[in-house]
């Protein structure tokens, strides 16, 4: 009995260890934040290395500054493009303006090296729709004071950071409060006149496209945001040299142009980066993946994430349930703890994994694993502890040992409920795995995040529909397997009692 539990735990641990091992390899990992410009700059860096013969792992769409910088610090990624203002405010938490040299020295203490600036300054700016500007005559940020009813919606990062809205509000003495919104959605909402003011970047492709007006920063609030690659200091010199390829070559206008190509013309990021590299006489060997290739690759990743997490969760949850179901003072708190894990919002749980496990597949799988425990534990403990006591008494009276009674009576009779629990967990896993992209875990969520970033509804739909389809197919497979291994009348007898759980 004990040895069975230990054996199952050992398998689960081994599974997790193997996955952990997969995170380390000799290729260079390039990261990016969750916006188009960072993505393009990431592609530039990645393709440069690929063209020079290195293999590259792309961890793009990695959420906000803290996640990406953390990943760089921990060595989960080797390089990404950052902005001087962001480094000063978010990473170094300095209120006074630092020179590039000061920034460089401060980062060097963290084992991180700054490369040459790329040339452009992507500062924050306040944007309004040109119709609103025409109606009100707004042209400067300070004039916003006269329109207290305007609806302010800012990206979450701008709302929270030191040099973000709270400071700006104080600097300009603005009366308005503001809410958070995803940047790509903000631009649509501003065109639909559902919101009035949002934060932009000076290199935003949409400024022209969406007929926006950038308000003049008349009281000079916004600091400089010079883009530059930052890399791990321990990278070989040769690699650092390569990553300096685009130094001082990107003006505000060039960058806005590249953004425009991706965002408005919907050209693949890889192609846009390749085209630009050609102007620097770098003939990139990059081949843009077709949507189909991407879909297959993401689907496989998705299945991998959800499958490993579900497998580990099933083994661990079954072991725990079998160990504790008969001990009510123990089984209740365990079900309670598993339930508590379930109440943590999935995005938050994923983010919580980053400081513990870095970014990538491992933290995503751990989060999905934790998320999948409850349904299996709850149904298994309930099923095992509610088997007809007469049958257990008969089994004992006839001379079944405790283990034989468990294996030959309790578990088979609990199978339908256990299966229902695993099924629910499988669906939760597949659904939640779409968020793994947020911490570089890949999966179909990558398509959704990319679609959101590029304002490409088609990509969002493909990602979401594929995940839904996968959930349906998995559900059907479970149904088939259940029919194969559980006698019909046992399943039927249980279906009645389990209906509410499944619904």
């Amino acid at each position, binding site marked *: 009995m004990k040895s069975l539990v230990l054996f199952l735990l050992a398998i689960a641990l081994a599974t997790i260890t193997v996955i952990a091992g997969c995170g380390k390899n000799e290729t260079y990992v390039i990261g990016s934040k969750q916006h188009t410009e960072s993505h393009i700059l990431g592609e530039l860096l990645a393709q440069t290395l690929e063209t020079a013969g290195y293999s590259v792992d792309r961890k793009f769409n990695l959420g906000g500054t803290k996640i990406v910088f953390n990943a760089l610090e921990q060595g989960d990624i080797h390089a990404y493009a950052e902005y001087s203002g962001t480094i000063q405010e978010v990473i170094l938490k300095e209120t006074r303006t630092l020179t590039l040299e000061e920034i460089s020295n401060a980062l060097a203490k963290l084992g991180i090296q700054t490369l040459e600036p790329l040339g452009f300054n992507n500062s924050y700016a306040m944007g309004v729709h040109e119709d609103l500007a025409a109606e009100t005559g707004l042209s400067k940020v300070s004039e916003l004071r006269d329109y207290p009813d305007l609806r302010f919606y800012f990206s979450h990062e701008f709302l929270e950071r030191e040099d973000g809205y709270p400071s700006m509000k104080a600097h300009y003495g603005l009366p308005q409060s503001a809410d958070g919104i995803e940047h790509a959605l903000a631009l649509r909402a501003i065109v639909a006149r559902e919101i009035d003011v949002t934060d932009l970047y000076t290199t935003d492709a949409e400024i022209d496209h969406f007929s926006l007006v950038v308000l003049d920063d008349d009281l000079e609030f916004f600091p400089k945001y010079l883009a530059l690659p930052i890399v791990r200091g321990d990278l070989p010199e040769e690699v650092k040299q390569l990553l300096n390829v685009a130094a001082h070559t990107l003006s505000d206008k060039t960058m806005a142009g590249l953004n425009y190509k991706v965002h408005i013309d919907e050209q693949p990021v890889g192609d846009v980066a390749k085209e630009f590299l050609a102007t620097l006489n770098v003939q990139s060997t990059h081949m843009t993946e077709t949507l189909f290739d991407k879909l297959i690759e993401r689907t496989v990743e998705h299945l991998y994430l959800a499958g490993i997490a579900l497998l580990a969760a099933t083994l661990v949850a079954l072991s725990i349930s079998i160990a504790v179901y008969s001990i009510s003072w123990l089984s209740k708190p365990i079900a309670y703890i598993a339930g508590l894990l379930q109440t943590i919002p999935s995005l938050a749980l994923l983010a919580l994994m980053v400081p513990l496990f870095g970014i990538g597949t491992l933290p995503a799988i751990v989060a999905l694993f934790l998320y999948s425990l409850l349904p299996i534990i709850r149904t298994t403990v309930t099923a095992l502890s509610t088997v007809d006591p*007469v049958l257990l*008494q008969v089994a004992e*009276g006839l*001379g*079944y040992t405790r283990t034989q009674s468990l294996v*030959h009576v309790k578990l*088979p*009779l609990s199978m339908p409920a256990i299966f229902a629990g695993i099924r629910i967990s499988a669906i939760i896993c597949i659904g939640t795995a779409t968020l793994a992209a947020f911490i570089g875990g890949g999966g179909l969520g990558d398509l959704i995040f990319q679609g959101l970033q590029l304002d490409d509804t088609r990509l969002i739909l493909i990602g979401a529909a594929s995940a839904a389809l996968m959930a349906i197919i998995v559900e059907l497979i479970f149904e088939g397997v259940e029919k194969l291994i559980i006698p019909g009348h046992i399943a039927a007898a249980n279906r009645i009692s389990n209906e509410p759980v499944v619904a």
Partner: protein
Amino acid sequence: MASDPIHCVEFENAGKYLGEAWVFRGVDVNIPAAQVTAIIGASGSGKTTLLRLINGLYRPDEGDVRVLGENIPNKSPHLFRRKIGYAVQGAGLFPHMTIESNITKLAKLGDWSSDRIRARLDDLLDLTGLDADMKGRYPHELSGGQQHRVSLCRALMLEPKLLLLDEPFSAIDAITRNEIQDAFIELQRKLAFSAVLVTHDYREATKLAHYLLVLGDHGIEQHGALHDVIERPTSLFLRELVETEAVA
């Protein structure tokens, strides 16, 4: 500890404390071997408790119980229980197992050869009047009477010397019950096992048993060969039963 061929169960001042009271104390009786003994008594007098002392599902809180000449071992009581057949009210068949598995599972787990298992199974099905083609069916596909016959087969599978029956035929209709009781009498005559039967049905007791054990509020009120006991009922409970039955 010597084997006692005359008695299958020996109670020596046995008492059982359950909940917050003694169910009975001072039970001091020997149950004859190779016969059917019925335990009767008012509800709450501890009939089932007494039965469970025999296969070690309960342990006595005072006194001693010896079964088939030995004390119930503390270690591996399941091996001891396999020498004792057990059947309960409502048959208690495992719904997820076929009839064959219900009957033969323990024999398989106990390393019986498949030939021996097959031979024993066929014998038992034959003895209890069940068709061999029922082997592959599930309990819910059988009638109540057939389920009870299967339950008897399961209890007898490991060739026990002693069979314990806890109100085994009380949940079926009168006609079916009658048939099964007849089948049981036949079985016992052929296989000559010892049996201890708990029942609340006086007629069943008098029909099946050779020996009667009457349980009262605090222990055994009367016991003896069936005829001796019902001819001279000293127990108040039994006297009422005998009189009611005589009027009917």
